[in-house]
């Protein structure tokens, strides 16, 4: 009994799911249950975007203290912009557009790591500088008319399968792949080892630079895919479409129970945290709070969640 409880409570993502369910109930109570399906679908859809970028960010954060990718929002914007431009509303180009996005992710990831490695600067500064450059490219590419996504792609991103939004299914598949990568493969062991002690990892024969490079590429590719989907979902790319995902990608990772000190990561938690973050905002909307109150409460809830759930898990 005691062991079972310890087992359960040793999983930090339990907390984010518990909080999600509470917020969901509170919101549904207000509307008298009328909108529970809509709310759940919207939550799944918007959470899916956070999940996709969150997973990438989580891999990077797992690499240990100081590892973070601030170029996520700029990458999303540029990817959405370029892909829609290339596809030019033609259904036949959907796959080509996706490939372009992925390729862009590769380029950004390599660029990020080249800066980190060549200039020996902390990732936070390297990815920040990189994001400035990407953002400028996006501004330059975004000139002119707003281009719509191809119809088929727009339909796909906005419709459901058995009541579950397609976007959420995509995110679920990506999460499952990420989970296998993290829990079952050598690569997963390697990033965890690097996160705990880079030098010890090096001395056990782990190719540290190669592994880190792959991780930064992975993060940028996921951000690119997310930008591609988000631009298609919202009917076109906008310059600020990625901006809220900077803080969001970090918040969902940490609220989800991934250790910020590195070495320990958690994919189910990202789902819990992403759903939670969306539901909190919609709950406050439902209750008619103004923008100011909504921000304050969002902030306090983040702190409260991390206060209750996150204590001492970093195990420093």
């Amino acid at each position, binding site marked *: 009994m005691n062991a079972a409880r310890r087992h359960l409570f040793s999983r930090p993502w339990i907390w984010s799911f518990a909080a999600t369910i509470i917020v969901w109930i509170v919101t549904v109570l207000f509307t008298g249950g009328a909108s529970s399906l809509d709310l759940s679908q919207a939550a799944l859809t918007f959470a899916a975007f956070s999940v996709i970028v969150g997973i990438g960010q989580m891999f990077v954060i797992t690499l240990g*203290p*100081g590892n973070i990718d*601030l170029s996520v929002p700029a990458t999303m914007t540029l990817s959405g912009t370029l892909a829609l431009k290339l596809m030019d509303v033609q259904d036949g180009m959907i796959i080509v557009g996706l490939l372009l996005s992925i390729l862009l992710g590769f380029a950004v990831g390599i660029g990020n790591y080249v*800066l980190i490695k*060549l*200039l*020996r*600067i*902390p990732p*936070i*500064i390297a990815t*920040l*500088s*990189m*994001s*400035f*450059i990407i*953002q*400028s*490219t996006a*501004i*330059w590419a975004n*000139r002119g008319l707003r281009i719509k996504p191809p119809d088929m792609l727009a339909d796909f991103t906005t419709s459901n399968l058995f009541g579950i939004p397609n976007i959420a299914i995509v995110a679920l598949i990506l999460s499952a792949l990420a989970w296998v990568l993290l829990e079952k493969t050598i690569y997963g062991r390697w990033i965890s080892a690097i996160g705990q002690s880079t030098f010890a990892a090096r001395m056990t024969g782990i190719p540290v630079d190669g592994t880190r490079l792959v991780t930064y590429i992975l993060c940028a590719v996921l951000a690119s895919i997310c930008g591609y989907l988000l631009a298609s979902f919202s009917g076109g790319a906008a310059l600020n479409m990625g901006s809220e995902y900077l*803080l969001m990608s*970090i*918040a969902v990772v*940490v*609220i989800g129970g991934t250790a*910020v*000190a590195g070495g320990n990561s958690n994919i189910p938690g990202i789902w819990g945290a992403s759903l939670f973050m969306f539901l909190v905002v919609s709950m406050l909307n439902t209750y008619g709070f*103004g*923008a*100011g*109150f*909504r*921000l*304050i*409460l*969002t*902030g*306090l*809830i*983040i*702190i409260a969640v*991390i*206060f209750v759930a*996150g*204590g*001492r898990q*970093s195990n*420093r």
Partner: protein
Amino acid sequence: MKISSGTIRLLIPAASLILLLAAVFYMQPRAMSYTGLNLLFNLAVPIALATVAQMLIMAVNDLDLSMGTFVSFCACVTATFLQSSPAVGVLIFLSAIAAYAAIGVVIHLRELPSIVVTLGMSFVWGGLAVLMLPSPGGEAPGWARWLMTSRPPFVPMAIVASVVIALATHFLIMRSSAGVLIRGVGGNVRSVERAGWSVIRIRAGTYALAGFFAVLSGIALVGLTTSADANIALRYTLLSIAGVILGGGEFVGGKVSPIGAVIGALTLTLAGSFLSFMRISPDWQIGAQGAILIVVLALRLFLNRLEKREKSR
């Protein structure tokens, strides 16, 4: 002669600043005047203060992602309450500083990651700012305006203020016995604890001090811009971190340099002015800023290598 690693850490950002300044003067010789310098470094003072605040947080191995929203909040308070009813304004600032100390306590007690707690706080400060000033407005208190726009003889206000900030914080953090404790916590918490100090008090004090400098930053900013809005200083979060790093500070280990941080802030401000002198298309302004950041960091790496080679010889 042996040069200490602290001096080296200062030398590199100073060289970057001088190099950038030389480039600006070369392109725009008219900038080499009282008015020119004032224009170049106009916005440096609030950024320098915010950078010092961030540096304090980084000295105890934390990171404040709410710096930008907090400075915006302080700017809003300055443009509203501090202007209309100074007593209330001061009271708000005191409670904001107390809140910073409380954040330090919470982070320490529960061993929470500072990035996440301050991330949450950035929403809180942003919300409070929006409540106070839903749309841009307010008015700078006369004295703040006077202070920031005064024209001391020979040297522009921005530079005088930067030097004062650099020297004052250098004394406070690098020379005073209390500053040693702050950096000690960053360097080795356990050793500070074992020596019988209350680390929680040191951390709370450091956060409060950081809050104080951020408040000054908000006031200085409104003194320059005359009005405020809830998003006025959002970019300060990243600018302040970049400033500390450019100034030779490090993310962990309590290795910081106040003079370097101020120089870093000046460099970043100058980079902005440099771009407008270059007549770079607005599309590429942000990108060029990123490029400058990269160039300066590459320069720092190069000088570091040079120094290391000297050392090993």
